[in-house]
Structures are given as C-alpha cells and as structure tokens.
C-alpha cells in the first residue's frame, strides 16, 4: 500500500537496527546499564508492540513506555463523574470507544450503558454535535479527552455549537497537556531515562519549541517521532547519536507533518475555548500543576461541569498498583506484582492496562517480555 509499506520496509529496518546496535553498545558500556529511551506517546507504544520492534533491538537499549495514553491516565474519579452525568435524566453521553471501557470505582461507561444510561460511541466530536441537532429535547454531553491532538477538534466543535446556538450540547472536559507532565517526570530524582521520543501528533499542533527546556535545562535529547515502525527506529537512532556525541537537542524526525511552530489556526481555537487548570490529577502519577485544561468562562453554557452537579469525589488508586513506577522507568510492566495476575485487560486495575495503548496492556496483548525472549531464542 502506497505511503504505508515504504515506512515498514524490513531491509531498511535491519540497517537501522545495525546502526542502533553499534551506538547503543558503546553507550551501554559507558553507562554500565542499557540505554533507556522513553517513547512519550501511547501511539508509539502501540507501534513498538504491534510490529515486535522491542524484540528486534539489542539488549543494550530499552524503551520505557511513557504517560502519553490519555485514556490510561484518566483518573477514576473523573470516570465516576462521567458515569454520574450519563445517568442524569434526558442525557445522551457521547464518547470515543476506548474511553467507554475505562473502569470507574464501580462502573465503566459501557456498564452504565448496560444499566440503562444512553451512552453512544462516536468517532468525532462533530458526531456528538450531530446528535445534539437531531435530539433537541435531550442534553448531549461529549466526554472530551486527549492531548493537544484532539483538543482543536473539540474546541472547533464548541465554537460551531455556539455559532449555531445549540444549547443542548456540552463538554465534560478532561483534556490534558503533556509538557508539564514531562517536566514533572524530569524533576523526579530517580528517573532513569536518557532520552525521549517526542509525541508526533501532539507536535503537529504545538510544534517542537515547547520541548526546548528538555534539552536546555535537563540536558536530555528529544526527537519528535512519527508512528510507522521505520519512524520509530530512525528516531531512536537519532537519540542515540545525540547521546553518543554528548549533545542534547530537540530534533524533528516527523518533519513530513510536524513544523517547528505548530498549527497556529488550531492553537488559536484551543486558546479561545480552553484555559489551564491550576492542577489536574493523572492516574498513576497524581496531581500535576497546569497539566489539564478547562473551558473558559464565556463558554460556561457548554461546560458540563457547570451544567451538572457532579460527585467530584476523588477515588484512591487501587492497592498493589505500580503504574507510577512503570511510568518513571523504575520497573517494567511484567515486574509489577499485579501484572497478568490480578491486573489483566479483562479486569484492569492500573491505568496502563486500560487502553490498548497502555504499556501494560500492550505487553499483555502482544507478548510478555520473557515469552518473546523464549520465542526469539527458539528460532
């Protein structure tokens, strides 16, 4: 398939892996441990597992799966609030499919639907707006979540609703922003991460400049990466070369869609509708200052948090959950005591088991590390 298979060429992959091996062996010798590179985005985690990339790499370099899966890091209390909205009389709750499965402290949205709430799976916020037009006597609430990738489409949908005077449409806003969370990870004294693959689609919107502090203040290389397997391998090689040459820069591997300064039109829409919250809770990581957005005051009519009385209760992280340690690169998913025993994709306990992009779900779905090693050893 044109423009797809070119980015999955196994011959080029082998050459890149040879290059990666040479540099990473040298670096691992210098560090006395494998080089650890965090792929920030859940889409990258998905590619790494989907194509079996981790098993193709030498043992001198490892991926650490980052916090960039918006479904995974959604706190339980916010899911509970969303379930409460869905159960209000007259409400149609519109959600992306993978968010419907996230467990709250008692129910997920899918379970709320089974119990009688009117929950609809949509593919775009505009589908939710269409539901509002078609059901003028109902209140349609869109469960908005995601990073800057999905923020502009939500913002434009709200602007559209306002221009149409549709007052039976609102957002339950859970949009988050990755940069403060990266800073919070970097401020952790025990962080074992040597460099980063930057989130490709977030960067389409925000550009590359917001990451400059990673290189300048924390002296870590960051390469904004695309989502095809060769994108990942090439970006990893670029991080390793920087480390080898003792450089720390922000580089853009995904230049075919990411610009230095981002998408001004999208950022403008986002700024019109949203403002930073003082703080937002991330599942597995706790409260992080300025890491979430809410709707600005002029859009209160479209804000489900203003329209509905919400329980707003904060739910404790489940016992035995070590998602925070996985996210900081301290342990691998399989080293968590709950992994694959009490915590599975069927019955997720921790954030990272929830969505197929979560590091633990990906490990579980596409091969636990020891098993893959067995498989590779027997062939």
């Amino acid at each position: 398939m044109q423009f797809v298979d070119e980015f999955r060429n196994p011959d080029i992959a082998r050459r890149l892996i040879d290059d990666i091996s040479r540099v990473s062996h040298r670096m691992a010798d210098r560090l006395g441990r494998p080089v650890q590179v965090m792929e920030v985005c859940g889409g990258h985690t998905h590619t790494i597992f989907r194509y079996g990339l981790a098993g193709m790499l030498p043992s001198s370099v490892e991926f650490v799966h980052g916090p960039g899966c918006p479904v995974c890091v959604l706190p339980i209390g916010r899911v509970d609030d969303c379930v409460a909205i869905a159960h209000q009389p007259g409400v149609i709750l519109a959600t992306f499919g993978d968010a419907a499965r996230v467990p709250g402290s008692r129910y997920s949205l899918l379970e709320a639907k089974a119990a009688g709430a009117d929950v609809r799976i949509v593919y775009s916020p505009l589908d939710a707006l269409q539901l509002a037009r078609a059901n003028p006597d109902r209140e349609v609430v869109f469960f908005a979540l995601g990073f800057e990738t999905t923020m502009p489409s939500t913002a434009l949908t709200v602007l559209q609703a306002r221009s149409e005077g549709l007052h039976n449409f609102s957002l339950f806003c859970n949009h988050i922003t990755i940069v403060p969370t990266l800073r919070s990870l970097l401020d952790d004294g025990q962080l074992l991460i040597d460099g980063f693959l930057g989130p490709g689609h977030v960067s389409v919107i925000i550009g590359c400049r917001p990451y400059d502090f990673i290189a300048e203040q924390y002296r870590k290389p960051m390469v904004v990466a695309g989502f095809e397997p060769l994108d990942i391998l090439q970006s990893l090689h670029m991080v390793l070369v920087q480390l080898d040459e003792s450089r720390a820069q922000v580089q853009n591997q995904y230049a075919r869609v990411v610009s230095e300064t981002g998408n001004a039109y999208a950022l403008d829409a986002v700024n019109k509708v949203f403002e930073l919250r003082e703080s937002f809770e991330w599942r597995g990581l706790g409260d992080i200052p300025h890491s979430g957005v809410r709707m600005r005051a002029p859009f209160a009519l479209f804000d489900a948090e203003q329209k509905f009385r919400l329980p707003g209760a904060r739910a404790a992280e489940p016992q035995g959950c070590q998602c925070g340690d996985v996210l900081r690169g301290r342990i691998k998913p399989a080293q968590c005591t709950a992994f694959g025993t009490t915590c599975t994709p069927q019955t997720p306990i921790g954030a990272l088991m929830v969505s197929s992009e979560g590091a633990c779900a990906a490990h579980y779905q596409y091969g636990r590390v020891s098993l893959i090693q067995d498989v590779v050893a027997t062939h």
Partner: protein
Amino acid sequence: MFDKELITLAHGAGGTAMRRLIEDVFVAGFATPGLSALEDQAEFGLAALMEHGDRLAFTTDTFVVAPLFFSGGDIGSLAVAGTVNDLAMSGARPLYLSCGFVLEEGLPIDTLRRVVRSMQQMADSAGVQIVTGDTKVVEKGAADQLFINTAGVGVIPRGVQVSASRAQVGDKVIVSGDIGRHGIAILMAREQLALQSNVSSDCQPLGALVSQILLAGSDVHCLRDATRGGVATVLKEFAESSNVAIQLVESALPVDASVRGACEILGLDPLYLANEGTLVAVVPSKDADKVVKAMQSAPAGRHAAVIGEVTSSPAGRVVLETQMGGKRIVEMLAGDQLPRIC
C-alpha cells in the same frame, strides 16, 4: 396484499393473521416440499441420511446483526451461511435447516419478505433445505426489528475426523480467502462512520469448499470458519486445544487493499475482524500444496494461502512474525475492537 403492511402482535397470536403470514411469506418464500404440509415438525428418512456418512452433525446459531442489510449480504443470508458453515467445519455435508424468527411489532412485512428471499437464495446455493420454522412477534422496543435463529443438521462422511485438538507439530495453516471483509462491511454500513468504501461482506456457504478439501484426499486436522474474533481467535483456540504453538507470517496473510486501508485509518487489526465465509484449515505439511490447489478451484477459495505452521513451543500460543521481521504474541481480545482516539 401485504406490501405496505406492518407486523402487528396479531401476526404472532396463533390465529388467521399468523396463518396468512406463514403461508404468504414463509411457505411461499422457502418453497420447500413438505413445508406446505404445515406440520409441527419435519421428517426425513434415516436411510437417506446414512448414504452420506455415519454421524450426524447438529448445530445452532442466532443472528441479531444491525443493520439488517449491508454490502454483500443481509441477516437472512448470514443466518443460512452461518449455520451451514458451522456444520461444514466438522466435515459434514449440510442438509437441513430450521429457522426461528423473532419479529418486532412494526416491522414492514416487505422487509421480512426480502430477508426470506435472501435466505432461500443462500439455501439454494448451499444445497440445503429449510424444513421447519417458528415465528414470534414481540412488542415494539423488545427486539431490534428482526432476529433469526437457525439450527442445522448435516452428515459427516465415514473416516473424516476434524477437531480443534488435532493440530500437530509440522502441520501447515491455510486460510481460504482474504480476511476481514465482513467486519469492515458491517462497520461501513453503520451510519455514524463518515468513511466510504467498496468492501463487501464475504458472506457465503462453505460446504462445497470443504467437500473440495476432503476430495483432495488430505487427513484434515482442524477446520473452523473465522467468524467473531477473526482468524486470530480461531488460531488461538487451535493452539490451546491442541497444546501446540502456531507461527504466523504477517506478510502471507491475504488482506484486500480496501480492508487494509480501512484498518489503517481506524486502528483495527484485520486478524481480529469477523468473516462470514472464510475458513482456517490445519493440514499435514505434505498435503498443504494440494489442499491449497483444491481450495483455489472452488469459488470460495480463490485466494487460499498458507499463512503459517504448527510448532511445539511456546505451547498454547500464537506467534506472529510481523511485516518488519519482529515477533509478537497474538492473544484473544477482551471485547470488541474499538477504534482508538488518536
């Protein structure tokens, strides 16, 4: 006279309205000798059955697909092909089907007629007869338009022993056609998806294809049609039941370009998409070529291909060699595949 009429509760009440519905829609539509006798059961002679083999195969399946009509099929063709295929996967020759309808009050009778016509066409092409049936009408809202249950009887030829537990180390894994078309056709037919594509369901009966496979003279170890859960789920079932590993080669999987395109956009994996006329076979290595050739000679098997082999370890697992040369474990999904948000 029914053309603009709707199903009402009277059509399920056992009186003249119900009798008229049965005669005008079902008896006329199915045109099966014996059905017009309107007995409460169908009869067939044991001697005639025994000409086909020495064991009966018996199965049932219920169909609740929404929407009722989609590219390449409808609930009626699905209800016949689905049960015919479940019978055929034992190696049986499918012979007779029953059908039970649950109709929602308010269903246009014309819609029912269309479904019945499509069932009869599929039954003709599968070489089976619909010999008995039942109809219930439920109040509006208690069902989504129309549900169908079919049960079927077939006869397994002497000596044929097909089972999910018979995969052996060294066997080859064959798929009968390109995968994932039914799953994508249904997704496309659902109204919210603003995507257009020319993908049609692979909905088709597989009895003739299975006959071709058996005629090729191979001791077929496993056969299963890859319906819900797709090829991945069938192979995982084989690996677990037979306590073997199955090694798949991603680049050998036949996937139509339109299906692949839709999967790329929606973030879906064709290995998990439903099929309604595509089977997976596990056969001894020495027979693989002749089985593939035999399959390719039947219309339902034109795109048949070897997609992998059976090895000893890791037992109970399916391992995919990716297009990139990496390896990953193929597990069953916890639920439906859901499009990802970004």
